[in-house]
Each structure stands twice: as structure tokens, then as C-alpha cells.
């Protein structure tokens, strides 16, 4: 039974069309999921690591970190992807489209998350450092047991926004021909002359991001001790 050939259901919720496009879109789904997982974990881990290094306040290292962070926050993600994919091979570094996109987005997310983590670290009251150091805890122990738990908790809400925004730009991978969800869906859309595959793709984006949002909400509650 076919839906009315000119209605909303026919164009956007046409399960026939979705089924035809499903194999390609699902392949794109797994690719996007993989990129998202790598970008979220790699980007936040690198951002946190940079913020921790910055806490040591070693001049030249700090300048390098600030330069790195500002660079990847200022330049559009697409430009970075294009540079990594098309320009780095001239320097002898060749990446597949998948890795060029993933590495670029990891760097971008690392830039933004470093700033968020660093802001969290500096927002923790100086008295926390003093109390911990006065009991004989060292710098790293104080950072690890006292400062970071509080800084990370402060960082989670702004970090969530960046994580989602930057992970969504995995769709930019289509510019260097990564067959991720959105590029698969839009090629299916043009070959089928029906946009239902895009609806399907939107649903799959939800499947990826809803758990991510729920996870960060859980994190917020987990670290939401009462002040």
C-alpha cells in the first residue's frame, strides 16, 4: 500500500524509500557513530590533558597551548579538514577521508574543551589549593583529587554544548567524500527523488545524540553534590 503520492507522508515518511536507501544509510550510520565516538573521547581527553599541562604554568608550554587552542577555535572546522586532507600529503602525511575528518574534529574539540576545562580549573577557589597543600598533598595530587573533580563538574554543561556541536560536524566529512550518514542520505535522496532518506538520517542522528545528551545529564547529576 502506497501513501498518497503528493502528501507529507509520501515525501518525508515514505518507508518504502527508506527501506531502499537503508543499506547505504546504515553503513553511513556506523561510520558516523565511529567518528563521533572517536571525536568525543579523543577531543575531550586531549583537551583535558592540555588543561592539566597548562596548570603547571610553564611559560613556553603555555604559549604553545594557547596558540594551539586559539588556532583550532578560530579556523572553521571545514578549513581544517580540507587542509589535513589536501595539504598535509605535501608534507608527507596522508590520511584517509575518514581519518582526516576525525583527526581534524578531535583537534577542534580539544581546543574548545581545553578552554572549558581551564576555565573550570581557574574557577575553583584558591583556598582549595591551599587547604590541600597545607595537609602535605603535592601539586599533582591536589590537582587530581581536589581541583579536577570540581573543575570537571563546572565544565560539563558548557562542554556538552561543544561536544554536540562539533560531533555534528562529522557531516563535514562529506566534503572530502567520507560516506557518513548525511552524504549517504542525500545521494539516496537524489537517486530516489524523494527526501524520506533524510528523515531516516535525522532519526539516526537522534539515536546517536540522545544517549550522549542523557549521558552528560547523568554526569552532571553524578557530580552534582550539594554546595
Amino acid at each position, binding site marked *: 500500500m502506497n501513501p498518497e503520492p503528493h502528501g507529507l507522508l509520501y515525501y518525508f515518511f515514505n518507508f518504502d524509500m527508506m527501506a531502499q536507501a537503508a543499506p547505504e544509510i546504515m553503513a553511513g550510520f556506523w561510520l558516523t557513530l565511529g567518528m563521533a565516538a572517536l571525536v568525543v573521547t579523543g577531543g575531550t581527553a586531549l583537551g583535558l590533558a592540555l588543561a592539566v599541562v597548562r596548570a603547571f604554568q610553564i611559560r613556553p608550554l603555555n604559549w604553545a597551548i594557547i596558540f594551539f587552542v586559539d588556532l583550532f577555535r578560530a579556523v572553521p572546522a571545514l578549513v581544517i579538514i580540507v587542509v589535513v586532507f589536501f595539504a598535509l600529503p605535501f608534507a608527507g602525511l596522508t590520511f584517509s577521508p575518514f581519518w582526516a575528518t576525525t583527526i581534524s574534529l578531535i583537534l577542534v574539540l580539544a581546543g574548545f574543551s581545553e578552554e572549558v576545562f581551564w576555565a573550570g580549573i581557574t574557577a575553583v*577557589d584558591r*583556598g*582549595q589549593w*591551599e*587547604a*590541600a*597543600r*597545607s*595537609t*602535605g*598533598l*603535592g601539586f599533582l*595530587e591536589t590537582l587530581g*583529587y*581536589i581541583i579536577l*573533580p*570540581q573543575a570537571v*563538574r563546572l565544565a560539563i554543561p558548557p562542554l556538552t554544548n561543544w561536544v554536540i556541536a562539533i560531533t555534528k560536524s562529522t557531516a563535514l566529512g562529506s566534503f572530502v567524500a567520507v560516506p557518513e550518514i548525511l552524504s549517504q542520505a542525500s545521494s539516496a535522496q537524489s537517486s530516489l527523488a524523494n527526501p524520506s532518506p533524510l528523515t531516516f538520517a535525522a532519526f539516526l542522528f537522534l539515536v546517536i545524540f540522545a544517549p550522549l545528551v542523557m549521558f552528560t545529564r547523568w554526569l552532571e547529576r553524578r*557530580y552534582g*553534590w*550539594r*554546595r
Partner: protein
Amino acid sequence: MSVDRASPPILTIRGLTKHFGKLDVLKGVDLDVLRREVIVVIGPSGSGKSTLLRCLNRLEEPSAGTIMFDGRTITDPGVDMNKVRKDIGMVFQSFNLYPHLTALDNVTLALRRVLGMDKAAAEARGRAVLAEVGLAEKAAVHPGQLSGGQQQRVGIARALALEPKVMLFDEPTSALDPELVGGVLDVMRRMRERGMTMLVVTHEMGFAREAADRVIFMDEGEIVEQGPPAQIFGAPQHKRTASFLARVLHR
């Protein structure tokens, strides 16, 4: 317990100087702190009382001068301050409890990470010290759910648990509502009875009068006058001391 006048002082401070840029905050302080002595430091705001305490465990780096603690010159380069600090307890005006940890974990963290005690031993000592400050039943509670007075008693327990040789108190009751001050001072009196050496910056003149072995009056980065409380409060030798006391006692 009375002051140990036979042994060498626990702290010997000579020519202690601290400046922030052009501002001279400590101008060559000399002070011996005897074992089991309770010293109360008084003085106007900005006179350098906090800076003096903070230099003693080098939270603030002295600009010049020497500090000998328990026979070691801790102002020498290469001294491992983390080892020294576990023997110098510090209690802060704003408590500075770790908000993400329970009262018990606030106390046991350094026991485990600094003293290297195992979990069971650290918790046993942590609970015992919390009981000493009257908070046995609050072990599992986070600081945010405690009153200011209770928080400060956890702050004292955190320092006390390391069994320090000296305790530094920087206005421990200044941030408290008046009705909560007594409980904290009671804990400090009990510590005194058990022979703890204490250096206390406070505006609680009643406590100074009855609990101090010696009162030190500081002004503009110097010790202006010192002596037993009866002498400082009854017959101050310096005009500056007298006028400070007149101001704080007749508020």
C-alpha cells in the same frame, strides 16, 4: 598541660620578611614558639597576621629570614615542604573543605595520600577525630549540608588527624554566626588541654584572655608587644596596643 620551657622551641623565626611588590607586609619578625604553647596573635586588619601564619608553612614564600621547625631550617632550599606540612596543621577562616567529598573523606584523604595509611586504618582514625570534634554522626555528609560551625570543626579534624606538631588557626571563627563560635572555641580549648601547640589569629578576646599562654600584638608588619594575656589586656606597654584594644573591646 603547661608550656614546655625546658625543650628547645618548636618554631624559631628570625628576621622573617615578606613584601608584595613595594608593600612591606612583614618587617623582620622574630618569634620563638615553645612546645605546648598557645599563642594568640591580635592586631588590626592588614597588619600581616595571616601572612605570618602563611609563611610558616610556606603557603606564602618568605622574602627573607629563616624559620626553624622542630630542629630543621625549613626555609632552606631543597626542603621537602610536603613532608614538613603534614606536621603543621592549618585551619582557615573560610574552612576550605572539599565540597565534593564527605566529611570523612575530607579527613582521610591526606591520611591515605600523605601518610600512606590503608583505607581501613585511615577511616578508623578519621572517625575517631570526627568524634573528638563532636561530629561522629556526620561522617557521611557533604560539607554543603553542614552548618558553618560544623564545617569548621571538620576543618579542624582534617588538620588534627595528621597529628601535627603545631596547629595554625587563621581567624577560625570570623566567618561564623555568633551562636556557632562557642562550639569551635570549645574544640580548640580541648586541644590546648591535650597539649597541642597552637598559633591562633583571632578577634575573640575572651578566648585570648583565658586560653592563651602568650598574646602577641602585631601592627604594620611588626610584633609591637607580647606577653601573658593579663599583661597585654591589663597593662599594655605601647600606645598602639592600648588604642587597638580600646577599639576592639569597646565596640
